[in-house]
């Protein structure tokens, strides 16, 4: 095999690793389509549309023309650069992010739920995080092999949570009417989210979780 062919094969492997195995990608797309469908029929068309867009983008990405060679290497170089930047004024940057997040949480929390201002702020932050994740390679080195039983246990707990929520949703008299007898998480959190401080606290937690995920 010539050097050119070897380089091309290595680049293909890098791109495949970057995008993910076809099976896992198909699974994610199917889950996103299911979320889009259930969101749309339960009175959340915007949620559904956004999930649909991301599913379409992932599908398009799978079929897209080859990325420029060296993306993975560039990602590794970026990770190294990020690590070195972390030594600089990390405390200052962290404080600025925390302050900005707190201001966002209080501001967005002051808006009525499901209003256009609340929608705009949450959609903006969510879209920015997803775009960041799309464009940037993983920052942390992959962990070693994980024990299968433990991974299955985590998967089972997360799946159980999703199924329990879905079961509660389907027990409602309609998909858009909450039920006291079978409350969904949305119904259970309604009292907290009815107040501006409650919304600000929940939004702060949501932002912290998002920051944790974006940094991984």
């Amino acid at each position, binding site marked *: 095999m010539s050097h050119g062919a070897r380089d091309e094969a290595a680049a293909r492997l890098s791109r495949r690793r970057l995008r*993910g195995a076809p099976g896992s990608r198909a699974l994610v797309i199917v889950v996103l389509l299911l979320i889009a469908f259930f969101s749309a029929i339960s009175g959340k068309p915007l949620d559904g549309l956004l999930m649909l867009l991301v599913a379409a983008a992932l599908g398009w990405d799978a079929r897209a023309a080859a990325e420029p060679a060296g993306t993975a290497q560039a990602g590794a170089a970026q990770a190294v650069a990020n690590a070195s930047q972390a030594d600089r004024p990390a405390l200052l940057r962290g404080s600025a992010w925390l302050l900005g997040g707190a201001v966002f949480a209080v501001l967005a929390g002051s808006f009525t739920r499901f209003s256009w201002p609340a929608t705009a702020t949450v959609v903006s932050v969510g879209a920015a995080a997803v775009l960041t994740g799309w464009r940037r390679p993983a920052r942390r080195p992959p962990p070693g092999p994980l024990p299968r039983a433990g991974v299955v246990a985590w998967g089972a707990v997360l799946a159980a949570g999703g199924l329990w929520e879905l079961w509660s949703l389907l027990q409602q008299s309609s998909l858009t009417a909450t039920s006291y007898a079978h409350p969904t998480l949305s119904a259970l959190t309604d009292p907290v989210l009815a107040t501006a401080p409650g919304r600000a606290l929940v939004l702060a937690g949501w932002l912290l979780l998002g920051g944790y995920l974006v940094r991984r």
Partner: protein
Amino acid sequence: MNSHDLTVLGYLVILLAAGLLAVAARWTRAPVPALGDVLDRIMRTRTGRVGVLVAWAWIGLHFFAR
């Protein structure tokens, strides 16, 4: 115990199970990875990263957006 209590109990059991897994991962020698390690593994690829971030974004949309 009525249906409401049973439903809430279900959520609490699932939350407790997640907490127990987290404790097992951090403080015991059980073969349970930390959730962060599982996320790192999932987020190695663009699809995984986008999938996890979309799930997070969906939570915000679901609770606050129209």
